[in-house]
């Protein structure tokens, strides 16, 4: 299968890999780069577990043709502090906003994008921002509460 070179920034670090023609960004992140934070849920764009930020904009990495991120910046939950000290991570823990945790990286990235564009969103804005991300455990309310708490604190930018 034909391979193409691909260079992009992942969480601020330059990455250069070869990708198969037609590969999606999710597979490149997980298999070629080794960032396992974005999850493969439906691979159909329906669950949001693979949500990453591409040039600061939320994107579904499973539906993103990898070569389209050439020269661009990709942010994943892998770029958040490993000790869980980001305000969103702390709020998710405080509100028990993760149970199985499979959706959490996507939720965190969707929430990060929201808080960077809208530092003090209201509930409707939070619901809309998370509307493409499915959680089968929490019933959503703890997640919404966590994001609103961070918004109330005025935080939300990536550290």
């Amino acid at each position, binding site marked *: 299968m034909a391979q193409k070179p691909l260079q992009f920034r992942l969480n601020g670090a330059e990455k250069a890999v070869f990708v198969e023609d037609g590969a999606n960004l999710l597979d490149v992140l997980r298999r070629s780069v080794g960032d396992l934070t974005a999850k493969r849920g439906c691979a159909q764009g329906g669950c*949001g577990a693979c949500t990453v930020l591409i040039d600061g904009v939320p994107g579904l990495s*499973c539906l993103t043709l990898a070569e389209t991120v050439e020269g661009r910046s990709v942010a994943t939950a892998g770029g958040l502090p490993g000790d869980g000290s980001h305000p969103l991570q702390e709020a998710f823990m405080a509100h028990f906003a993760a149970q199985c945790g499979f959706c959490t990286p996507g939720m965190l990235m969707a929430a990060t994008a929201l808080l960077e564009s809208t530092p003090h969103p209201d509930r409707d804005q939070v619901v809309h921002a998370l509307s493409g991300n499915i959680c089968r455990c929490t019933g959503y309310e703890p997640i919404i509460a966590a994001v609103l708490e961070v918004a109330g604190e005025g935080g939300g930018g990536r550290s």
Partner: protein
Amino acid sequence: MTVTVHCVPTVAEAAEAVARDRSARYFGGGTLLMRAVNEGADEVGILVRTTDPDLKRITSSGPSITLGAGVTMRAVLADPALAFLHPVARTIGGPALQAQATVGGNLFAPHPYGDMAAALLALDAEAACAGGPSRPLADLLRDTGTAGSQVVRSVSFTRPAAGTFRFRKVTRVRPTGAPVLSVAASIPVVSGRISGARIAWSAMAPRPLRAAEAERALEGCRPDATGIAGALAAAARGLDPPDDALASGWYRAEVAPVHLRRLLLEDGED
């Protein structure tokens, strides 16, 4: 099937590349095609994409508006001049999907998708295809399947008068789930009577389409419960809505008049 990606600089070249090979598919935002690629669909052998900047252009000249086929739902939402389309774009997936889903792609989205296509039908849009003249979008959707054998360059329409354009999406997963049905309408009222109404359905047929009988029934009627009764009776006449996991065709036909009534009597432009 092994997938090959061809990237060309212009829409015209993309159209030529698509026409050359039966397994070639035009790649817009990728929300439909990447699903097929992820599933290993045999019929997709070549993805043809283009970096043509015209595709992402939104142009407005007087009342005329042209949306490049590559304009995303996110771009629509970011443009205050397109506020009448915001209720449509806002319901097409979450923010991540909206950043990828394009106006052109929505024209060829399979059932039950096609909310923007229905809105553009209600706006009486024309579609410009690569290598061909503009033609009514209704004709393009009627004649073309979801395989996308033509490459649409842009869609053009006239800005609706304030308060005349309406959109309603019925979904089981709010706010952005796939539609049970969607209905868009342009309802001009002249001297207290409806004149030149256009109504379009999505998810009520394999492809979005105009509700011609309901439109005719509205002509000259007052926009009240009595005036629209004929249109409600004709709402789903002649349609055979598809069954799917969201709703049966029977259910869609039964509730279509209910939602058309709400659209005509309760909804208004943002």
